[in-house]
């Protein structure tokens, strides 16, 4: 392990986080809140640690797979710990584990909360909570790559570890410009949503925070009722944008380049939209009798499907009252998650698609054992290495799920609660089925369960393997 390189990049990250914390301080100034003061010692602390670390001069700057994975994993844990400090110092979240859960939930864009009453938080804390979604959605190391190109070769390993999906796609030859472009598209969509919601009469502060929450596919709301109290227009805008953020961002780049044909032919996009359409139709039919009009049923099913598949996790109605069939569909969508290369979590549509194709091919091979076949996506062959990683990921996901459910079950809640809460954390969604209070509220779990779920969220956001290598002793050995 190249410790100096690891520390240097973590140092840069802390400095960046300190810079980000200036935004809630500004918010506090605008609303004349004293809670803004609790950010200042944290900013000072981050700078005191971050500046000397970022000045380190590692002898070798190659970012091999080991360094890339370890840097991403450690930085996400560090970032969540540091981000939790303001909540804790201001006593707005008095238990540190709770604050850590809340911040990790923010950065990993889960949107699960331990707060019983969100509306008592000060504006600056609310802002920080939602802003972590925006940063975590596209990835904070991708942000570093976008603003300051790192020296040394193999930097693609950083992006690979942080970007969701079975493989990282560069849309431009240079990693720095790819990162910049992704953030530009991301910022543009955020701004567009913000403007559209403001136009619909939503307060500016709520619009901004909801836009952050949607962009990162996070799901922290400003109100206890999540999105339920806003107008149908605003809910519709959020539905559309949630679906948009669940799409691979390279699709938007292709649209920018006016390459429309490959967009329509993109298999993952078609599969994603197909799943969304089928899920909406089935749930609408299933819940139609619970709403006054068919349109209303459609509106709320569409919102919930979009919120779950994009792994955002906003709610307009309490879907715990819905029939079992609808809830089962939602749980299935929780596992699927959004597209690769989007800001969403979950297993990713492309992984599901490849696994389904694999099942299809192997089923035929049972009858024709000598049949030679290749799995391909968009006309490109899926290499054995990638297939292997997908199965490895799937196995780890299943193993982690089982282990977490086992620990959480100590709290004594129902099996459905335990399983869906864990899936919700692993897939970075937020709400869970058969909830004890509100759909996204985790406050009644014990501290141990909260810690396990926090770790699950970080595992889920980084797609397990980077965090897993932290537990391999060989990672930490000097070369």
């Amino acid at each position: 392990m190249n410790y100096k390189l690891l520390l240097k990049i973590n140092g840069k990250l802390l400095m960046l986080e300190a810079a980000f914390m200036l935004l809630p301080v500004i918010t506090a100034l605008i609303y004349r809140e004293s809670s803004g003061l609790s950010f200042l010692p944290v900013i000072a602390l981050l700078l005191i640690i971050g500046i000397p670390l970022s000045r380190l001069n590692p002898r070798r700057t190659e970012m091999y797979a080991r360094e890339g994975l370890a840097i991403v994993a450690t930085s996400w844990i560090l970032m969540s710990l540091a981000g939790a400090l303001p909540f804790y110092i201001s006593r707005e979240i008095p238990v540190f584990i709770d604050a850590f859960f809340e911040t990790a939930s923010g950065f990993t864009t889960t949107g699960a909360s331990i707060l019983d009453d969100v509306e008592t938080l000060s504006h600056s804390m609310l802002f920080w909570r939602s802003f972590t979604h925006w940063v975590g959605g596209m990835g904070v190391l991708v942000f570093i790559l976008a603003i300051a190109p790192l020296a040394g070769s193999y930097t693609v390993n950083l992006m690979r570890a942080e970007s969701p999906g079975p493989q990282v796609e560069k849309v431009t030859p240079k990693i720095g410009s790819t990162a910049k472009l992704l953030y530009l598209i991301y910022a543009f969509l955020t701004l567009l949503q913000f403007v559209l919601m403001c136009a619909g009469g939503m307060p500016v502060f709520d619009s901004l925070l909801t836009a952050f929450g949607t962009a990162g596919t996070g799901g922290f709301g400003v109100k206890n009722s999540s999105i339920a109290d806003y107008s149908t227009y605003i809910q519709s805008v959020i539905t559309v944008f949630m679906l948009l953020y669940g799409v691979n961002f390279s699709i938007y780049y292709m649209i920018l380049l006016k390459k429309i044909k490959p967009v329509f032919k993109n298999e993952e996009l078609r599969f994603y939209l197909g799943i969304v359409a089928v899920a909406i139709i089935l749930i609408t039919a299933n819940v139609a009798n619970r709403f006054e009009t068919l349109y209303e049923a459609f509106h709320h099913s569409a919102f919930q499907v979009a919120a779950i598949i994009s792994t955002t996790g906003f709610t307009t109605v309490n879907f715990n009252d819905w029939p079992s069939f609808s809830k089962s569909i939602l749980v299935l969508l929780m596992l699927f998650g959004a597209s690769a290369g989007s800001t969403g979590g979950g297993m990713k549509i492309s992984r599901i698609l490849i696994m389904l194709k694999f099942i299809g091919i192997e089923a035929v091979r049972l009858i024709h054992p000598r049949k030679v076949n290749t799995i391909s996506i968009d006309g490109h062959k899926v290499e054995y290495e990638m297939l292997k990683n997908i199965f490895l990921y799937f196995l780890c996901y299943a193993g982690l799920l089982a282990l977490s459910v086992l620990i959480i079950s100590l709290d004594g809640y129902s099996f459905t609660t335990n399983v869906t809460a864990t899936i919700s954390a692993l897939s970075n969604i937020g709400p869970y089925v058969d909830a004890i209070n509100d759909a996204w509220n985790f406050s009644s779990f014990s501290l141990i369960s909260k810690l396990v779920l926090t770790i699950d969220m970080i595992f889920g956001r980084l797609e397990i393997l980077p965090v897993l290598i932290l537990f391999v002793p060989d990672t930490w050995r000097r070369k």
Partner: protein
Amino acid sequence: MNIIIVGCGKVGGTIAQQLASENHDIVIVDNDSERLHQVGDMLDVMCVHGNGGSATVLEEAGAKTCDLLIAVTLSDELNLLTCLIAKKLGAANTIARVRNPIYSDGISLIKDDLGLSMIINPELAAASEISRTLRFPSAIKVETFAKSRVEVINFRITPGNILCGVKIENLKSTIKSDIFICAIQRGNDVFIPNGSTELMPNDVISFLASPASAHEFFKKIGASSHKIRDMIIIGGGRLTYYLTKMLLQVGIRVKIIEENLKRCEELSELLPDAMIIHGDGTDNELLHEEGIEEADAVATLTGLDEQNVIMSLYAAQNSPNAKIFTKIKHFDFDDMLKSMDIGSVIYPKYITADHIIKYVRVMQNSIGSNVETLHHIIDDKVEVLEFRIREQSDMLSVPIEQLKIRSGVLIACINRGGKGFIPGGKDTIEMGDTVIIVTTNKGLYDIENILSLKPAHADSV
């Protein structure tokens, strides 16, 4: 610039690495996905998997809008086809590697029809490098400017040479030859000397001179400037063929030792004036029988690097005065090879990459500028640029001593009417001249950038 490199073998990889480090946008295309990902992980480039001969693959790589496509796959035919398709798709410039000697004469006929900007033949390029260096056996490397009227020569000052301890301003009076020292490498340092700089043993100096003055210079400093008359080449590959052809033209007797009888017969048919010996170059009896002690130059050009190194060491031991060349195809241990007594090391992959990179730099510089050629001397730290004066400017017809020239810039040579001269303070730059500038400042794109008033990249800051 947007550059596509088709084929990421040794040469492709070297070019990609160089160009990526110079901040170009690189897309590499290769059929071998493992190799592709290996290079793609290491460098900041985009990878496209597929055959370069396919229009779909090239389109995916962005051939429609690229500034340059470089085809360096193993197959000449595929390289030509790739370039042709890319050109039709809309690539601005294409470079193909073509190695087979059979194609070499026909290719110039169809170069324009295929829309090729440049054809690179690594063996031919390596052969010309060897033959250029042979003219000055003491030199390490020789580069030419101004249509071969001016040369930049790298030369190591051996301890005990009369140049040791001489100040640059006294150089003319000491050795009375018309050379211009433009850069000195001392240890790991590279700098442009001034009049009071003293030359030290083991300095590598780069100097600029006409071929005649260079010849005279080597004679005066007593470096072994005796003409090469006999040369032994071990290994009979394509490089040997091109080199022998060049050497025979200037009257050097060439002996080729080749193991494969069939290849010997082919060579004797192609090169009737050379002496072809069928035998094993690692057999020292044979080497002595063929007179390795008396040869003026020995080149080990077989396909096996380790064999070449060993044979060169042996040749250096047995004929200490001979000029030795060693071809290295695969080894990446440059630092180690530098310390070994194996003469000038010839790396066909670097030579190919160098040619292409020079082309790219000139191409980049020529967007809105007047750079004719560009060389990097000594570890890329010093650039030698050749400008052509095409436009009227305030600085023309003004004596050079009155121009405010930036630090780190030297006007090394002015070529006017087919003659090159080293300018003094009273000389002027005129319309139609080509001017050679030596500089440590990178990114000059016009002759006016040498003035301190107009910094280069003023528009891009």
